[in-house]
């Protein structure tokens, strides 16, 4: 199938999708991306209502504006989907991600790692004489930057939650 416009820019979009929490709903949403050969940069999903009936899925995906509009309409067409919002279309969206980083080392590297962690306001959630586990929250860019800095200092592994996002103000999304 041919896509209509070719001169549009590919950018990362953050889609937030409100769904009925029923079996298979995540597979339905994700299937629309994988079936078209599109990549997902990050994905988070969790129940959000007390009665366990609603879930919120946040997907970060690259695409042209017209592709994003198309895929949003197709996601919205799925039976258990309530609404789809492209939160990156708004200037004031709050994006957050959480990461856990394990850094191992001794001597100068260890001191430097701890100093940088303080500067980034990362918490030390586990430590021994040979390692730290840092917990860092913030926008994805900040986390990526921190990871880059830790690489030469003995970075062992990284776990990232993926992005969650919410609009400012009193509305629902």
């Amino acid at each position, binding site marked *: 199938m*041919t896509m*209509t416009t070719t001169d549009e820019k590919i950018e990362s979009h953050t889609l937030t999708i409100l769904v009925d929490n029923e079996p*298979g709903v995540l597979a339905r949403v994700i299937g629309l991306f994988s079936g078209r050969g599109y990549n997902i940069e990050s994905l988070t999903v969790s129940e959000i209502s007390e009665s366990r009936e609603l879930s919120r899925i946040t997907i970060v995906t690259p695409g042209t504006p017209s592709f994003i509009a198309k895929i949003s309409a197709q996601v919205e*067409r799925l039976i258990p989907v309530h609404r789809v919002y492209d939160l990156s279309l708004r200037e004031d969206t709050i994006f957050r991600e959480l990461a856990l980083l394990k850094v191992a080392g001794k001597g100068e590297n260890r001191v430097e790692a701890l100093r940088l962690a303080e500067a980034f306001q990362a918490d030390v959630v586990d430590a021994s004489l040979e390692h730290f586990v840092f917990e860092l929250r913030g926008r994805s860019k900040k986390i990526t930057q921190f990871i880059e800095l830790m690489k030469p200092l003995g970075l062992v592994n990284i776990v990232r939650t993926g992005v969650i996002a919410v609009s400012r103000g009193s509305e629902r999304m």
Partner: protein
Amino acid sequence: MARTLSGAEIVLRTLGDQGVEHIFGYPGGAVLPIYDALFQQNKINHILVRHEQGATHAAEGYARSTGKVGVVLVTSGPGATNAVTGIADALLDSIPLVVITGQVGTALIGSDAFQEADVVGITRPCSKHNYLVRDVNDLARILHEAFYIARSGRPGPVVVDIPKDVQFNLGKYANFSNTGHRTYRPKMQGDKDKIKQAIALMVAAKKPVFYTGGGVINSGQKASNLLRQLVEATGFPITSTLMGLGAFPASDKRWLGMLGMHGTYEANMAMHDCDVMINIGARFDDRITGRLDAFSPDSKKIHIDIDPSSINKTIQVDLPIVGDVAHVLEEMLEQWKTAKLKQEKEALAGWWTEIEGWRKRKSLAYTNASDKIMPQYAIERLFALTRERDTYITTEVGQHQMWAAQYFHFDRPNRWMTSGGLGTMGYGLPAALGVQVAHPKALVIDIAGDASVQMTMQEMSSAVQHNLPIKIFILNNEYMGMVRQWQELLHEERYSHSYTAALPDFVKLAEAYGGHGIRCSDPAELDNKIMEMIESPLPVIFDCRVEKLANCFPMIPSGNAHNEMLFADASKDDIGSAIGEAGKTGV
């Protein structure tokens, strides 16, 4: 009031409360409880097929010719996987189906049990929605919901996978047939303001055209009636996709014929040159648009569709109206009454003159012969000899399908059943079966190709068993004609594996099944033999031996624009140069 029943009984109660009279199916271990419940009642008739694909196409034919939901019942594993082609077919052509599949017991799911398949996984991308029922107390709600989802909005197939223990378990039944859905609420009414803008465009239009599709048929008889009124009121020309044939009478003078890859010259030229295009229930499919960047370059496009995701999917439109066709047309007609005084009458007359010029090109003309049957002629005679009757046509896929669309004309909706979106060879014979079940007294003809018909030929046995006198009219060219045509045009006549060197004797085959076989290769005998077919009380296979190398024209090779058509009288050189590299990669 909730009553306690077994899961299998709940299935039948639900079908009864949904007004289902016929279901198409095939038994097996994982649906035995439902078959047992079927045995003990006589409200619902079960039509036993010979292959589960046949059950799905039969249900599609039933649904398409009645406007009701088609119902299928098959067993787990291979029963369900055999049904997948029909489910996918129904999704692409927006046909309402409820497909009930048996599943292994809940405790066995995921253990690679005998005849286990992940049916919700397999059918997720090819159904409108699907369910795995884990608790018998959810069964009634889910089944009623399945019917609602299948028939409302843009219709489609819904799969309900029921594990065997759930069929045995006792649970509560309640009639949920009038409940809506929490998240799924299709928008029926079109935005009045948008419709007003559409009317303004139409009033000012100098070269308007209606481009209509299967959505008009799905919206119901009322939508077809309103479409007729709107065409009458506006005086605009109208064309339709393959799926929309019959929604507007082909005998009307405003009818331009079908558009698209094998559409008429006048329809495609009108689409290309128009200044206002009113798309009603069609989806800018690639068979219609041809080359996207050359598609109707100078027109304002209005798009009426019940499915918001169809809007701007392949073609950017100027004015989308999301809603049900009948609802939107009603409002349009109302608004047109006050707006029409300002209509561009003179320009419209000029537009018609231009269209009449294109009509004179006679793009469907072909050279007839007296010593052999031309396939186009066979369809013309079939049409002429059946037009006064209560006739329904189904088709397989290939050249014969296009010739049927071109030379058989429909004045009413729901009379034409064909696999448009998926292009499924093997659709027509079982679909005819389903149509005949719904209309036992009607004349139901499957216009077939010799290759396609062999894909589901075994359903002849079902036709004989259930006294369904369907007529299978094979345009026998011994080739997979459409494949051969593409090989001729695009691959320098290298006919790789498109010739069927060992065709069965179709007359004997008909007799072997207990039907009636007829063969004809002489145009002079054709009428008499067609009459013999029509008058036979049995299912008939008609082996119509036609010219083997005929091609289906006119044609817009894929990758070409609407105004770059090939005609029957084009020379080989013209054809070679008309098809670019893009055309070779297209399908």
